């Protein structure tokens, strides 16, 4: 009996070390993965922006982006001059591993309706970690394939995961036809939990052609 207790006690040491290692992986390993993916995605976006027609080579151009492909470059000046993330199409675990994701079927950048993004609050480079710091009137710059769109923060709220009305074309009014171009960023709240959702909604204020 005593021997069994001792072995159990001794096993606690490696188990604790493995847990510590997993915590380190969540903090640094996942972010390293995302940064690696982001380098590739941002380089690819740069190539697309460099072209005159905005098309990503042969095949479908505007609008038709495959799951996991880069859709736009997101910049938020309030979060620093170096804050930039390539937004990918899709919001499954495989896509959010790469960076913030666009809900398929919601509006594209600049379109009437609701351009909805989801991003990690913690882990995987935590693209939306600090969106709680955004204030009304802050700029959110979206470099899409066709133009640069600037949205302005209008509303910030914590909602339950079930409150899906916030991603409707007209937020909180399911079924209504959109007349403005909105953008909604969603992420987990509080940090290190998934109990609630933090949402930040913005309104399109500017469209600029890209200069070549």
């Amino acid at each position: 009996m005593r021997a069994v207790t001792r072995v159990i006690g001794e096993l606690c040491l490696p188990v604790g070390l493995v847990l510590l290692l997993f915590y380190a992986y969540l903090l640094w390993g996942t972010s390293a993965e995302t940064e690696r993916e982001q380098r590739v995605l941002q380089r690819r976006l740069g190539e697309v922006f460099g072209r005159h027609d905005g098309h990503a080579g042969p095949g479908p151009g505007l609008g038709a982006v495959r799951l996991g492909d880069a859709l736009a470059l997101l910049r938020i000046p309030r979060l620093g001059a170096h804050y930039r993330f390539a937004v990918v199409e899709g919001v499954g675990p495989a896509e959010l591993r790469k960076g913030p994701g666009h809900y398929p079927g919601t509006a594209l950048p600049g379109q009437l309706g609701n351009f909805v993004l989801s991003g990690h609050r913690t882990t995987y480079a935590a693209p939306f970690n600090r969106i709680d710091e955004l204030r009304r009137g802050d700029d959110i710059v979206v470099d899409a394939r066709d133009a640069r769109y600037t949205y302005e923060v209008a509303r910030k709220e914590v909602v339950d995961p079930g409150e899906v009305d916030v991603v409707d074309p007209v937020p909180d009014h399911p079924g209504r036809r959109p007349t403005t171009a909105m953008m909604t960023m969603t992420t987990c709240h509080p940090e290190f939990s998934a109990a609630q959702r933090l949402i930040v909604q913005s309104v399109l204020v500017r469209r600029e052609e890209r200069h070549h």
Partner: protein
Amino acid sequence: MYRFLWRRLPGGTVLRLAVVLLLSGAAMAALWYVVFPWLAPRVPIG
């Protein structure tokens, strides 16, 4: 337990130490590159 395992390892202190480091290194690499990437998306943190 650890004393028992240590005695079961072959060779002298140096070789035993090398084997321990090699095995624990391999275990950590397997965790970091295979187990954790699989496990991480299943942990309910945002």
